[in-house]
């Protein structure tokens, strides 16, 4: 599932559940429809509710990265769980996109 929030020039996409080839399509379609309408300068992926991701997620992020680049914007991925961070690092995408792992940029330990 995905919840999109537009705030000034920022679009936040909070995804919950699993990102695989099956779920990536509707996530992509919802984000792209919003992007084309709202033309944000920043796209923030909130991954705090993402329990699983395979390389379909890399394709999803890569495609949105290219889109945002063409629009002069940037993308950030937040609250990434360790296993998902491993998949992202394997792709080398952490060199192109800012990826913040779970617990980063937080002042208190919630666990």
């Amino acid at each position, binding site marked *: 599932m995905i919840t999109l929030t537009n705030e000034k020039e920022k679009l936040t996409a909070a995804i919950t559940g699993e990102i695989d080839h099956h779920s990536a399509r509707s996530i992509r379609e919802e984000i792209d429809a919003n992007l084309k309408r709202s033309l944000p300068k920043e796209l923030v992926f909130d991954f705090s509710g993402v329990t*699983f991701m395979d390389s*379909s997620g890399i394709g999803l992020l890569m495609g949105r990265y290219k889109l945002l680049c063409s629009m002069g914007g940037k993308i950030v991925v937040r609250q990434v769980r360790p296993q998902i961070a491993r998949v992202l690092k394997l792709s080398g995408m952490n060199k192109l996109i800012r990826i913040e792992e779970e617990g980063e940029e937080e002042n208190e330990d919630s666990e």
Partner: protein
Amino acid sequence: MKIQNEVKISFPSRSSNEGFARLAVSSFFTQLDPTVDEIADIKTAVSEAVTNAIVHGYPDRLGTVQLHLKILEDRTAYIKIRDNGCGIPDVPKAMEPLYTTAPDEDRAGLGFSVMESFMDKLKVLSRPGKGTTVILQKKIGERGKNG
């Protein structure tokens, strides 16, 4: 190597079965008492292989995807994923990182890279027109023995 337990599952190549395959595999290998990381590695690798079968094995028709799971006596999780689809003409090429035949659909071309790095062994057998078989193996550590 002796087989301690095994299960065979087959399902149609619908993308909704990708999640089912992950769940089935993680349920079966729970018997080995794997760590959270070990089971996540297996789930991710299986997800890649099953997705390949669905997307590339049967690009324009529904076919059957077969999973054969085994627990070997040295605590190896053995997973065979088989389709009878179109096959891969050039396996080494298909296994190159970032190689994809479906760039328009946001496929990253990293499926085999993920399988290779998350599992101990990866074997791919394919014959054009006959189908593809992927064999994944990962040895599960013994917990409680070394702390």
